[in-house]
């Protein structure tokens, strides 16, 4: 791990119709990128979610993953907490390590 650089990984699972707000916050926070996975299925606070919506991106769940340096992460985490409060969606925050830190700074 010595050769790797510590970063913060944030994952958000949110209805597709609200993903734009999350993407907006991620880019506003200075993250250099994100990964978006649509059609996420599973069981959550509001019951089961099928990921098999073939002709409907709007009501499917989307998972957004971003990695950014700790000094940028806190503001984003706070804003995302505020965004998710009282509405659908969950956020996972974890330490992660990357081999090319310049990609994420």
């Amino acid at each position: 791990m010595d050769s790797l650089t510590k970063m913060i990984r944030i994952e958000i699972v949110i209805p597709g119709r609200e993903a734009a707000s999350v993407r907006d916050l991620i880019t506003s926070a200075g993250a250099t990128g994100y990964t978006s996975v649509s059609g996420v299925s599973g069981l959550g606070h509001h019951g089961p979610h099928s990921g098999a919506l073939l002709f409907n991106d709007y009501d499917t769940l989307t998972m957004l993953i971003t990695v950014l340096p700790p000094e940028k992460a806190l503001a984003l985490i706070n804003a995302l907490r505020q965004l998710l409060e009282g509405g659908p969606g969950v956020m996972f925050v974890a330490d992660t390590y990357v081999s090319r830190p310049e990609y994420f700074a």
Partner: protein
Amino acid sequence: MNLEIRAAVARATRSVIPLWPLSSFIAVNPLGAQESEDFDQAATTRPRTAFLADYRSARITDRDLLVAARQRMPELAGAGSVCLGEREWTAAELVTTELVHADHHGTPPTPTGQPDLVDDLVSIWIAAYLDPHPLWPMPQRERGPWAAWTALVRYDPRLPAVARRRLRDLPGTPDAGLARALALLGVPAGDTETILRRETQRLPGWAAHIKWRSDRVGDIDVTSYLAIRLTLRWALDLPVLSSMATPQPESATVWDRAQALTAVLTDAPASGETLAQVARILGLHSPQAHAFTWQAAYEEHYRRQLLLSLDNTNTNTNTVKPSAQVVMCIDVRSEGIRRHLEADPTIETYGFAGFFGIPIRFAHYEARGSIDALPALLSARHSVTETTTDLPRSRRRTRALRLRDAFAAGVHASESVPAAPFALAETLGWFHGAGTLLRTLWPSAAHAVTRLHHRSTPALATRVTVADAFPLDERVALAETGLRMMGLDAFAPLIVLAAHGSTSSNNMYQSALDCGACGGNPGAANARAAAANFNDPEVRRLLADRGFSIPDTSYFVAAEHNTMSDRIDIVDQHLIPDSHTTAVQNFRGGQSVAADLLVSERAAQLPGARRHSLTRVRQRAHDWAEVYPELGLAGNSAMIIGPRDMTRGVDLQRRVFLHSYRPECDPDGSALETIMTAPLVVAQWINHQYYFSAVDQDRWGAGTKTVHNAIGTMGVLSGQTGDLQAGLPLQSIAVGDRALHEPLRLSVLIQAPLDRIGTIISRNQVLRHLFDNNWITLTARNDQTSAWFRYSAYGWTSASHLDTTP
């Protein structure tokens, strides 16, 4: 801090449903963001007087009220009965009697807010910024709305001098501007979201369009809009908006209600015990619930008639081998033409979402722009265009089109030069004047001239490039999905994929009459792409491996149903093989008869068309004064998902979305899940747009077309300024005071195994919200011979039980 303000903006605008521009007007449920709440809590209904008028005319009966009350309040079944006067009254009867005799409608008053100076100024600035074809482009527009506005606003003569001075030194970004305005206005951090929400609600049309634009175009966002609003509010020394909460009407106590009801039912004074019994029963049905019980009864009446009409269908109607199968969009207007086409027993019809399972961004041959020909639920991922082998003709056509465009652009540009109108009137005025006279007095002749004009550009034989846009395995998957969804597993020699579009003149809501499944565009491009896909030998070879053997003798042709003339035009005629030309000719003859019959039928309902000949009804498409070119989807009220045998031979009066489905073609239920999570959702959007435009035209409609002013193709204003109008215009739902549309929630009827339907609902939140929260209703049966069951959040209930007359 700025990031948290962005989060507050996102939360404050969560309930704002994007408003599509007029060029691709998509029906949406304006309360779509509130589907996680019960319909009773989020929505509203017609006034009590309207329901009472229907009650007096027997459009709503006592039986309807009883069924609705029992369905909405199952606890009434165990609430006992009360002896009043000469008879015993059940709990349900007491509740429904109160509905008729007492005014406890309980609909909250519509929140109203008088426009203020900020609203007026913001509308003008935002319109200037977003207008796609302004005569004078807004300076510095390319820097974004906040930067352009901050650069110019200090020179706005509508502002007092003190406000202009305050606006001289503003932050460089909208986020910082919004933060500064909130601080200067003294908004506590905890109130930020509430204040932002109130600001957003001031001009809901503009806010909704900006939300759409932010996602689809990206040249403006809600943060910039709110930053401008709040900054203006501070500069003008206006206070932040006070609470918009509207006072709720005071309800009578349950004791008052019991006394009033008892007095209606008996002349004798009731004992305290009897009054207590009545009060206990009426307590189960709060005044706030009254309006929605009326609504449920209103819908129950329609639904029962519909179910009864389906019970009379003959299941053994079509034993003749079909010569043609016609697949049409689920749009309610297709029901009429399908019914008339089926007068020929050798024609089978199917219903399928009008993009035919091929979601594309489509550009015509050498066109400058493209259209997103796909449902609004999807994002465009595949671009399809046309190709031609006739290069010399295509060069001539492109040259002619460019010449025509250049001439039109030149005339338009010269109109914007200050001195030019005088010269223009001298040189081109005669032509314009003659054209105007022709269009006013002889619309058909004007249309003929236009057609002649278009003939100067030679028609081009092209084919769509679907094979270049989609990999083979994806095309096969789409084809298989389409066949399973519509239950098509035996193939006639000719299979017509009939998309639809509409023709009208001077109609800013033209795209609302086109295909919603194709993004508010005519659907021929999708039909062409789908037909090309189904005819591809490679696709057919791989489909055979998946259980669908399309014979070599079967050929798919693309077509477009014009919902104004009801004619079905075959497209890509140059691709039709000789082996099928006779079949196509026969189909043409058949559709012509069906079209005439349907236009004649529609003329009985179309305002002003009753005494017109068929020709004159069709000519209305070219009349620029005609506000009712056709009725669109007015009257839509139900969606039926099942085989055509369920409905064949029944006149559904062009009110029902028909999606074909046969469980035997869908072993794992995935096709039904796709139908329920996509076409059904779109039908619900359409239904709710009509519903809300009809129940409160001022709040959710667009007002009368006659005073609309267009801002490019973006939207309309009612008059010269103010909010962007959302929803449907008055002419889509009424003629003066006479309703064209009955505001009914969508009654969904499905013929499929109930356990399959239940499983699909349980694993899809969108469906749980819609059905469990009563935004739409679901009635289903296992097969053609089974009884109907009604779905509720508590499971399936026998529909016949609900219909039992006491």
